[in-house]
C-alpha cells in the first residue's frame, strides 16, 4: 500500500477546470516533484491534498485513511504537514518559539493551561533539533521578522518538519530565493530524514532535479508526463509545454 494515494481528484472554479482527474501514488520515503507552468493548478492541488479546499470528485488517502474532506488541522494530525509558497510565519515570535509551537501541536501538553510552557524541556529540545537540521541555530532566539528572506524560507520548511509528518508537502520552498540561498535549501532538503515522504511543488529546476527522484508534470490541470527526471526531460510533450521555455535545464542541474 502506498503512503499517499490521490485518486481521480478534480476541481473546477465555475467554468474553469483547474485540476482534472489527477492521480498520484507516493511510497514511503519517495522524493516527488510536481512541476508545470504558472496556472497549471499546482497550488490548488496542494490545497486539496492538505485539506484547505475540498475536491469536487475523487479521494485522498494517507496509509489507507481517507482524508478527502477533512479540515487542514485534521490532515496534519493524520501525518501530512505542509509549507506555504508565501511565508506564513509568526513574525513577532522567535524562531525557537515558532518551532516549539509547531512541536507542541503533536504533543499532549498543548491544552495544558496552568503550567509554564518553559517547563516542557522536551519540546524545547525537539525545536532545537529542527533548528539545527534547518541550519537556523545561529538565529534560534531571534525574532522571525528580523530573519533574512532565505532564513524565513528555511523556517517555513522547518515549521512543517516540526510537525513530525509522515508526508511533507512543500509549496515552492525556493520561491523568491537568491542563488546562494537556493543552493543551501537544496542541500537541506536532501538531508531530510529518509523515512519522510516528500512532495514538492517547484518552479526552479535546480531544486527539482537536485532533490527529487520522481517528477510529475502538470499542464492546464492534467498530467502531461511523469517518471524519473531523465524520462521527463526527454519527453517531447514536456519539452514543448514547459522545459522549452527555460534555456537549458541540464546546465542548471550541475549546480545542485
Amino acid at each position, binding site marked *: 500500500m502506498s503512503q499517499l494515494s490521490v485518486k481521480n481528484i478534480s476541481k473546477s472554479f465555475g467554468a474553469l477546470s483547474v485540476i482534472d482527474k489527477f492521480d498520484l501514488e507516493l511510497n514511503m520515503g519517495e522524493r516527488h516533484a510536481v512541476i508545470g507552468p504558472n496556472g497549471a493548478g499546482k497550488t490548488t492541488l496542494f490545497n486539496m491534498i*492538505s485539506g484547505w479546499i475540498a475536491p469536487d470528485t475523487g479521494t485522498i488517502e494517507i496509509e489507507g485513511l481517507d482524508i478527502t474532506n477533512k*479540515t*487542514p*488541522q*485534521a490532515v*496534519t*494530525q493524520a501525518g501530512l*504537514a*505542509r509549507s*506555504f509558497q508565501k511565508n*506564513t*510565519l*509568526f*513574525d*513577532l*515570535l*522567535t524562531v*525557537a*518559539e515558532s518551532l*516549539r*509551537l*509547531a512541536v*507542541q*501541536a*503533536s504533543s499532549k*501538553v*498543548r*491544552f*495544558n*493551561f*496552568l*503550567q*509554564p*510552557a*518553559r517547563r516542557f*524541556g522536551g*519540546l*524545547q*529540545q525537539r525545536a*532545537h533539533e529542527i533548528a*539545527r537540521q534547518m*541550519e537556523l*541555530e*545561529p*538565529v*534560534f*532566539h*531571534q525574532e522571525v521578522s528580523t*530573519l*533574512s528572506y*532565505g*532564513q524565513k524560507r528555511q523556517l517555513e520548511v522547518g*515549521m*512543517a518538519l*516540526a*510537525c513530525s509528518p509522515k508526508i511533507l508537502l512543500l509549496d515552492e520552498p525556493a520561491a523568491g530565493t537568491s542563488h*546562494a*540561498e537556493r543552493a*543551501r535549501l537544496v*542541500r537541506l532538503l536532501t538531508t531530510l530524514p529518509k523515512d519522510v515522504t516528500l512532495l514538492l511543488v517547484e518552479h526552479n529546476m535546480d531544486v527539482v532535479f537536485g532533490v527529487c527522484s520522481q517528477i510529475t508534470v502538470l499542464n492546464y490541470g492534467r498530467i502531461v508526463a511523469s517518471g524519473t527526471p531523465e524520462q521527463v526531460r526527454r519527453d517531447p510533450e514536456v519539452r514543448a509545454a514547459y522545459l522549452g521555455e527555460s534555456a537549458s535545464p541540464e546546465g542548471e542541474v550541475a549546480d545542485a
Partner: protein
Amino acid sequence: MEHSQEDSGQGKNGSNVSNHDPMQPRAAREHKTFLYIASAGLLFLIAIPFFVGEYYVSLASEILIFAILTSGMNLLLGYTGLVSLGHAAFMGVGAYATAVGSSLLGYPVWFVMLASIFVSLLIAYGIGLLSVRTKAVQFLLITLAFGQMFHAIAEKTRYTGGDDGMTNIPRIDLSFLGLDVDHDRVFYFFVLICFVIALVILRLVVDSPFGRVLVGIRENEKRMLALGYSTFPYKALAFGISGMLAGLAGSLWVQHSFFVNPHIMTWQMSGEALLMVIIGGSKAFFGPLLGAAFYVLAKDFLSDITEAYLMFFGLLFVLVVAFFNGGIAGFISRVFNKFKSPSGKDGQ
C-alpha cells in the same frame, strides 16, 4: 545576521547560543523582569491606602476592578488578537448575579461571588463557542450583538428593577476577621486580593502551552491550522476565561458601588474598556492595569472640567492606535530599553 547565511560554514557545532541553557534566554529574562515588576507593583498597591485619602482609596478600588476586567479582555485582544465589543455583558452578568443572589435571594456574599464567577464563565464560554467561529470584523459585530442582547434583557426584566436597576447591595461579610468592609480601606484590600488572584491565574494561562497557542493564533491563524491545531476550542476557552474575569470585576463592582443598573452592560461600556486596554498597551501583561489607572484618574480629573471627557479619550485612542501601538506600557518599555542599552531593540 543578514549575511551570515551566505557562507554555509557555520554548521552543526558552530553554535554558541544554546549549548548552555535548555531554557530560552529571552523567556527566562522576561520572566525575571516580570517578577521584579510584579513585586514592585504589588508593594506599591499595598502602600496606597496608607498614604492617600478615603476618596482616592475608593478610586484605587475602582481602578483595580477595571483592571481585572481589562486584563481579562486583553487575553482576547492582546494575546489572541480578537476584539470583543460585548465584554461589558459579562461584567453585567457577574454584577447582576451578585446583586440578585445577595440582595433578592439573601445568600451570603462570598457564596454569591463564587457563583457569579462560575455563571459568567459558563455563559461566556457558551457565547464564545458561538462567536469564535467568525473572523475579525464579524467577531466584533457578533460580540456586539450578544452584548446588546444582554443589555436588552437587563432593561426589560422587572424582577431586577428594569432600567433603574437595583440598590442597597451588600458587600462581602468579613466580620469573622474583625473587619468592616464598608470601610473603604478594608474593601480596597479585599479587591486587591481578588485582583492578585485574578492576575496570577491570568499569568499562568498566558505562560502555559495553551497561552502560547493563543499567541500563535494572533500571529497567524492559518499557520496554526496548518500545524494541526484546531484553533476553535482554544479561542472559545480564552473567551470563557476572559468573560469569567469580567464577571469577577462585575461582582466586585456592585459591591463597590452598592448598586447596579443596565448601563454597566452597554456597548459604550465595552468601548470604554477597550479604550483602557488600547491606551494602556495591549501587548504588555500590565498594560491594561496602566490603562485602567490612567482612564479612571484622567476621567476623575477631566469630569471636574467638562462632561465631554469622551472627546479626549477618543482622540487619545485614535492617536494610540495610529501611532503608538504599544500604548503606555509600550512607551515605558521603550524608554526603559533605550536607557539600558542605547543600541537595543525595543522589547515589545
